[in-house]
């Protein structure tokens, strides 16, 4: 029953987020949506996914959209009439000559048709929770039965992520790295003239926020390291820990201002270097496996004691690589998006 309630709440949040005019409210509702999503995922036993969603969806995405809003516009323009008033009094519509008068009707039609076709498609799907569904009987069974013997990692999700699908994860890490690079290319300018003086003064009043974040940040960072280190045994890993570490720096910048944040020396001078270091560690461990006589990313062949030990340590190494890249890219993205220029 609670699952149904949560799903309905998700739908309500989605509708509210789409129909609000004030984009800041929309963003906050999207954060709430993500938080409910985290609960839904915990209910579905996808603990690693819930962990990622809590840090990424509810945390970083919200902050990024707010940063982008501060550099563009907060209000949605043009559409003075919501969907319902359009349906009820079509004569009130004010349209620019370029806008098709039936755009909203056409889109509604397309959306309804697509939705109907998809719902028709679900009739052939296996029921929710069916243990004999095709997705659950072939590959999954083998991974569950043998992955601990083969990799020495009790968390199946981490074992598959880092070992069986190691190439895929290397690709994903590269995608994140590429996103960081594209942001640098799109938005970074050489001059760092920040117009944060007024905001800094305003923020000085918020002594509670500053004190609390000063106390919290070391613990958040310690927790991030714990999450990376224990990714093999419990939910967590490089992606989650990296994002949590990144958000601790973002919290610091939000509480103390951009200028103060830029004084964190390691990120001013080494930010770009750290972005690529993580990917390099990951790819480098692959090359080490080659040198040790195995295939690319075949951790068992590393000369580190028994096969199980070597495999476990190899996975540990790439989790650290992923964590460094994710944390550095999140910080880079935030610094670049939030900067104000004159």
């Amino acid at each position, binding site marked *: 029953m609670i699952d149904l309630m949560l799903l309905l709440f998700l739908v309500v949040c989605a509708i509210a987020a789409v129909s609000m005019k004030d984009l800041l409210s929309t963003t906050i509702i999207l954060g709430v949506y993500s938080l409910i999503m985290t609960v839904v995922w915990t209910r*579905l036993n996808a603990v690693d996914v819930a962990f990622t969603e809590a840090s990424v969806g509810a945390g970083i995405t919200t902050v990024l959209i707010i940063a*982008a809003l501060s550099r563009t516009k907060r209000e949605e323009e043009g559409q003075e009439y919501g969907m319902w008033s359009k349906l009820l009094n079509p004569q009130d519509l004010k349209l620019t000559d370029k806008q098709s008068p039936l755009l909203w009707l056409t889109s509604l039609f397309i959306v309804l048709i697509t939705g109907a076709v998809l719902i028709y498609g679900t009739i052939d799907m296996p029921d929710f929770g069916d243990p004999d569904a095709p997705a659950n009987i072939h590959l999954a069974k083998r991974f569950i039965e043998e992955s601990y013997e083969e990799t020495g990692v*009790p968390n199946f999700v981490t074992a598959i992520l880092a070992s069986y699908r190691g190439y895929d994860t290397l690709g994903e890490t590269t995608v994140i790295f590429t996103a960081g690079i594209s*942001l640098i290319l*799109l938005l970074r300018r050489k001059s760092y003239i920040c117009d944060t003086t007024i905001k800094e003064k305003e923020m000085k009043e918020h002594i509670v926020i500053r004190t609390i974040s000063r106390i919290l940040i070391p613990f958040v960072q310690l927790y991030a390291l714990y999450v990376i280190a224990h990714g093999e045994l419990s939910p967590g890993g490089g992606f989650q820990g990296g994002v949590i570490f990144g958000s601790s720096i973002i919290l610091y910048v939000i509480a103390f201002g951009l200028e103060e944040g830029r004084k964190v020396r390691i990120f001013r001078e080494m930010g770009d270097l750290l972005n690529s270091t993580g990917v390099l560690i990951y790819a480098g461990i692959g090359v080490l496996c080659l040198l040790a006589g195995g295939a690319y990313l075949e951790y068992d062949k590393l000369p580190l004691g028994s096969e199980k030990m070597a495999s476990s340590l190899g996975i540990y190494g790439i989790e650290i690589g992923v964590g460094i890249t994710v944390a550095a890219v999140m910080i880079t993205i935030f610094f670049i998006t939030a900067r104000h220029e004159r």
Partner: protein
Amino acid sequence: MIELILGKYNYWVYITLMMIGFYAMIEKENLIKKIIGMNIFQTAVFLFYISIAKVKGGTAPILWEKEGIPYDNPIPHVLILTAIVVSVSTTAVALALIIRIFKEYGTIEEDKILIMSEVSGKQDSTENSKFLSSTSLLQKGE
């Protein structure tokens, strides 16, 4: 009929969510609204994957000493875990593009951007005057 509804209702909720996001992507003129629509669309797809992984009575896919309890399917979890982190990267790139568009055009409404780029495409003058004339034309047009 009731069996059908009980077995599939959650898929239908995901489709509803996906269609809400899809509607925002094609109908809204505001670019940030489109991105938010895309985010909702993505989470609906993620939900669909994760619910496929659920096994009745299953537990989280982490090795456990007790025998006889089935585990949920870990493969979709892996796929979606990385997909979430990639989705925040794509969102960040999209937001960066929107900031650049706002710098060039002074607006993030798609219809206005289209009008401005059409106007500036017809004129043969320096970039700066193109931009100025298109903004003044836009103001007259409204």
